[in-house]
């Protein structure tokens, strides 16, 4: 039982680490590159405007998609590794 609890706790901690890492990127591309850091990216031209504009109108959405698929793939693998997946 002690083993099972430890296992469960490390599974949950691994999930939290993954979520925190993903949300850091989530915030960086939208609130960071797309909004707050845009003036600092103004020197990088993208199709008639700058990188910040690209992140605000395209880059953040593409990153969000990649993040969700990465999270789903990692978690579904973790489920199996920790033996908590659905049979």
């Amino acid at each position, binding site marked *: 039982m002690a083993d099972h609890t430890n296992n469960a706790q490390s599974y949950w901690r691994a999930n939290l680490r993954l979520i925190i890492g993903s949300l850091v990127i989530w915030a960086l591309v939208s609130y960071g590159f797309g*909004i707050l850091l845009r003036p600092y990216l103004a020197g990088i031209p993208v199709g008639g405007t700058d990188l910040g504009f690209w992140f605000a*109108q395209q880059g953040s959405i593409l990153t969000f998609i990649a993040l969700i698929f990465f999270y789903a793939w990692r978690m579904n693998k973790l489920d199996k590794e920790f033996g908590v997946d*659905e049979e």
Partner: protein
Amino acid sequence: MSQFAINLIFVGGSFALYIAIAIWARAGSTKEFYVAGGGVNPVMNGMATAADWMSAASFISMAGLIAAGGYANSTFLMGWTGGYVLLAMLLAPYLRKFGKFTVPDFIGDRFYSTGARLVAVACLIIASVTYVIGQMTGAGVAFSRFLEVSSDWGLIIAAIIVFLYAVMGGMKGITYTQVAQYVVLIIAYTIPAVFISLQLTGNFLPPLGLFSEHTESGMPLLAKLDEVVRELGFRDYTADVDNKLNMVLFTLSLMIGTAGLPHVIIRFFTVPKVADARWSAGWALVFIALLYLTAPAVASMARLNLMTTIYPAGPTADAIEYAERPDWMKTWETTGLIQFNDKNGDGRIQVYNDTPAFAATATERGWNGNELTVNNDILVLANPEIANLPGWVIGLIAAGGLAAALSTAAGLLLAISSAISHDLIKGSIKPDISEKGELMAARISMGVAIVVATWLGMNPPGFAAQTVALAFGIAAASIFPALMMGIFSKRVNNVGAIAGMLAGLISTCVYIFLYLGWFFIPGTATFENIPQNWLFGGTGYGISPLSFGAVGAMINFAVAFTVSALTAPPPVRIQELVESVRFPRGAGQAVDH
């Protein structure tokens, strides 16, 4: 064949398809009615979620908003997609594991309190009803423009169609019609965009066209657009925003509001496994992104197209003569959504930004005020006509706009009816109701909800547009934090959760009412809704009433944790419940009580 006949064929054909699906996918049990039997393929559910989520606002209004605001309105693009990251990681898999039918179900069980369940039901109903009004009026407008019936009759036809498939099929019927509606709406949105992108940039992919060269001038498209609007006294299309605090908070409110909208959350109860709920959120965003990556391209290209139509020889030369205006302007003038007023009496259409800063230039050019007002909403609807596309594309746009409005309306109506029949009737008033009785109650409450929504659509409160802020504010400030704390904290207890939800709900509503009028009654606003009056307005970093949902959510979290820390921790069985939703094993199918 007349345009009317073509529109009729496209709209009639799509409706016949929805009804055929409804007959095929009838619901026989409460489980089929609430969660489509729990056996929906994750990709299919992603597509249905995309149609469920993308409303008349996404299909019709969003490109117009971005065209008008440029970079500043990127908030809608990030805000309405970023919420899916939160859904996929913070809510959907765990709520799927919990395995019941509604959002208040989880809040009621996790916070072991009928009070919490009722607060959640109230938030759900207010958020969903305000949202559904917009869908019904959107459907009415589309009908009256394309099928030449009065907007009231358009609404009634739309209501009958939704009634047929939603009441008969419940979530099962709604799921499969939403899949069909997604296909209709994405084709309708993409085809005109591809042609416009080809015409302006030679690139057939609109998202790439946005950052390509404008063929005619040889400049990058966005640089050309910046130049044209600057000449007319407007802010640069790509100009940065000064009040970044408000931009961040508005985007955050849209994100957590999206993640907290019950009609979106319940779509994830329909997939077979926890793993599928995670995949499904990804697929939903892929299908949403197909439209959301096209929208900013449509926005900039349509704005440039409009400006070059009006100033064929460039913004510093003569504007077009009113008598020579293109046919699409004439068509849309009859709807009142385009209005021309020849203020300087020269027979030409002058469009510019009528501000003190530009007054000297305007006088110099002999202009006497901006002469053309164009409603943002017509941009997408008029797109095929602006680009001279054949009549069948216009028919497709009509069917697409209606698909967007009806699919969202059906999802909202299901969320409302399940909250009434499952949470209010079975959960509180009459727990011993039979399965058959509950199914009948669900159908009746759905019918009543449709009648109420239709009536509100016909008699829209003057504040219809502002109420959308309320829907997002409530979802962000009350529902999202309660769900998240229910999953990620074992310490938040019943008193804490109720206090938190009420604090988030009340603070957000009060802040919105202060500026937009108490209960939206015109003339009752305490402060005029201008940036200087907003909270921190004096610093130039004011928080707009539309952005307050994120602040309300923070208040919710703070109050819930403080009150919980001062009161007894939840009982052991609740801590075990939290433990169980965190691990996928043993999810099985969505179960009844």
